[in-house]
């Protein structure tokens, strides 16, 4: 009897195990650290916290009177460190290194990272293969959001809740005055290549306008379409061809007076977005024109002094992406199931994602939902007020599939920012950095100071 029972148990065990393995799917073994009493999340601002509270937490609303939110009954704790001067990364790095030995309440269970430095967290054993925690349906995600989160061994380490295609936004009134056309469909053919873009710049100059407000406005369009990585496998620094093209363009644009010598974030650029501004266009994703073009918005409900409704969005010379936030799971976290639930909510839960797009003006990381919302808006005649009611979601849907990120390295942030900083010295006729060659030497010197092991071209 007992022998029979033992045999029965053995068979039962095998069957159960078989189900477990099949259940994991994708051939990856489930690997979950669970049982933490607190769901601890690291971030640099509260943007994602709002979405989490509203769409994922048990409470399902973003209400400041709620002190502690819960997920599956487990309290959620946020550690927010601003990203000024690398403070966020410093705090996060320290926490991640000690995550294995930290007491359970302090363990980081999930953290957020930006496109510019995500690779540092992807290429480390301190973060987990998210397919092993059950995040494995990327069928509706944009490929670049997966590519950038994939490590050297082809393991996916992060999931994004947004997609950040970027394009060119321009002033309709200036387009009408200079080009005689103002609608996106008419203007796009005039700027769909860099040569045409330059020709329009010359026309703008002739009428007393600037093409762009910053010499670096187009930088990301070039750099995020790179043909090679900033640093090769042997740590040799190389300048991607599009970045070289940008340098030529920026030099010409400044010399000809097509643009101003202001940085992308400088007040001298954004002030031109206000009423009476002399700048024709700028570049950026939805988050840029919705949240970073203050002077265009003007003041009050009537947008006084602004240029609200005078803008329009087109793809411009080249599709590209800029920014974005990813969620990652540390190897030594203690609430992997909750991480999985959170990631999947923003990747595959269509109901949640639709609200994210409609109520929070995000462009989500789900192709199907984005397309549905774009179609809904088209049918309802709904659109973005800043863009004179243009249905920008539809523009993004058409563009987002073309985004590619093939070459990223952990050095990208320093390379992109460093090159621009050095090059603008040359553009501004610095006493010492007064040639392009000297600007590059200046860039290489600072890059080598940051990363002593990189080999720079002599």
């Amino acid at each position: 009897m007992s022998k029979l029972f033992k045999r029965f148990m053995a068979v039962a065990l095998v069957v159960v195990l078989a189900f477990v393995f099949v259940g994991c799917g994708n051939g990856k073994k489930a690997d979950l650290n669970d049982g933490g009493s607190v769901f601890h999340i690291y971030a640099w601002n509260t943007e994602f916290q709002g979405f989490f509270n509203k769409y994922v937490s048990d409470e399902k609303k973003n209400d400041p009177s709620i002190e502690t939110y819960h997920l599956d009954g487990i309290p959620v704790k946020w550690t927010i460190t601003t990203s000024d001067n690398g403070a966020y990364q410093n705090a996060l790095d320290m926490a991640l290194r000690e995550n294995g030995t930290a007491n359970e309440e302090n363990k980081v269970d999930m953290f957020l990272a930006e496109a510019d430095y995500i690779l540092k967290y992807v290429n480390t054993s301190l973060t987990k293969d998210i397919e092993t925690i059950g995040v494995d349906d990327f069928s509706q995600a944009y490929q670049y959001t997966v590519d950038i989160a994939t490590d050297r061994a082809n393991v996916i380490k992060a999931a994004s809740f947004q997609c950040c295609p970027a394009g060119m936004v321009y002033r309709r009134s200036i387009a009408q005055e200079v080009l005689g056309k103002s609608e996106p469909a008419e203007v796009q053919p005039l700027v769909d290549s860099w040569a045409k873009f330059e020709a329009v710049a010359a026309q703008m100059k002739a009428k007393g306008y600037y093409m762009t407000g910053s010499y670096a406005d187009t930088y990301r369009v070039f750099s995020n379409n790179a043909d090679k990585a900033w640093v090769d496998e042997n740590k040799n620094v190389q300048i991607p061809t599009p970045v070289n093209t940008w340098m030529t363009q920026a030099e010409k644009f400044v010399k000809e007076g097509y643009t101003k010598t202001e940085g992308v974030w400088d007040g001298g650029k954004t002030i031109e977005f206000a009423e009476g501004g002399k700048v024709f266009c700028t570049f950026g994703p939805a988050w840029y024109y919705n949240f970073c073009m203050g002077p265009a918005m003007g003041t009050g409900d009537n947008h006084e002094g602004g240029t609200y409704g005078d803008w329009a969005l087109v793809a411009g010379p080249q599709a590209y992406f800029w920014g974005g936030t990813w969620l990652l799971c540390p190897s030594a976290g203690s609430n992997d199931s909750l991480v999985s639930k959170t990631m999947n909510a923003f990747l595959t839960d269509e109901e949640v994602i639709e609200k994210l797009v409609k109520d929070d003006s995000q462009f989500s990381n789900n192709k199907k939902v984005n397309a549905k919302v774009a179609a809904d808006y088209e049918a309802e005649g709904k659109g973005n007020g800043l863009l004179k009611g243009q249905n920008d979601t539809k523009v993004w849907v058409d563009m987002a599939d073309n985004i590619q990120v093939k070459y990223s390295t952990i050095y990208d942030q320093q390379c992109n920012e460093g090159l621009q900083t050095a090059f603008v010295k040359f553009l501004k006729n610095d006493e010492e950095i007064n040639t392009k060659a000297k600007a590059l030497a200046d860039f290489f010197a600072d890059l080598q100071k940051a990363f002593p092991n990189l080999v720079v071209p002599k």
Partner: protein
Amino acid sequence: MKKDKNKKSPSYAKWGYIFVASFFIVYLIFTFIPQVLTIYDSFFDYSDIVGTLENIVYFCGFKNYKMLFSVNMRGEIELLRCLGNTIVIWVIGAIPQMLFGLLLALIFTSTKLRLKGQGFFKTVFYMPNLIMAAAFASLILALFGTIGPFHTLFVENGWIAQTFDFISDKTWARILIAFMNFLMWFGNTTILLMAGIQGIDDSVFESAKIDGASSSHVLWDITLPLLKPISVYVLVTSMIGGLQMFDVAQVLTGKAKNNSTRTIVMLINDYLVNGNYGHAGAVSVILFIITAVLSIFVFKSINRKGDEK
């Protein structure tokens, strides 16, 4: 018997030690240990792990120090360049600061003028020092930035080109930083020098007066020579403070990465931002040695004053 002995000479020494201990504990934790760790770190190679999450470093002897003295792509030894920048900016600010401080100190201590409201003036002169340096620098940045009022004023009068930028210009940026340091510290210098002048025995001035010495004679032959020890102290402490110049310069020109205003502590900061504690440590050690030499000089000069008496 024993009890009596204790009663006769109760030992208060332990309370003294306990009160002093708080300083030593704070010094140990927040100054001494970090100092030792800085020196320790300066002998380790962090090059492989900067920008990564790895945590493995190895002993590398004087490699970090050697690297600091190698010529970079700009064709300069950056450490020396930064040291030079620091000294130049310090000189531009400190010389007017000393002269102005001395002038004010002489005016306020003058028995001829007998100025009223000294307390008020002293407070006002010291005020700029109370503003946070970073806030002050932000203000100057706003005033002299490319959309600041000074830029507009200068462009409209045709003194500078539209593309000119005070913050990235070598001369202007240095002068602005020196000016801020001057404004923040001249009050301090004035107060110290006033104390120095007031510390000179009145009888010396009186006998000079009786002997018919002119004001300039009194100044050059009595006040200044007797003020020498305190002047040396003011000068050297200002020099040590100057070597550690950071906040004002960083806030004003850090973003523009102006090579002519990068001070030596800004160089340390550049290394620290990337977690390169090896190089940051090496620069810190060099700065420590320079500061130590200057400090010894201060001690010597103060002690000499004691000997003369």
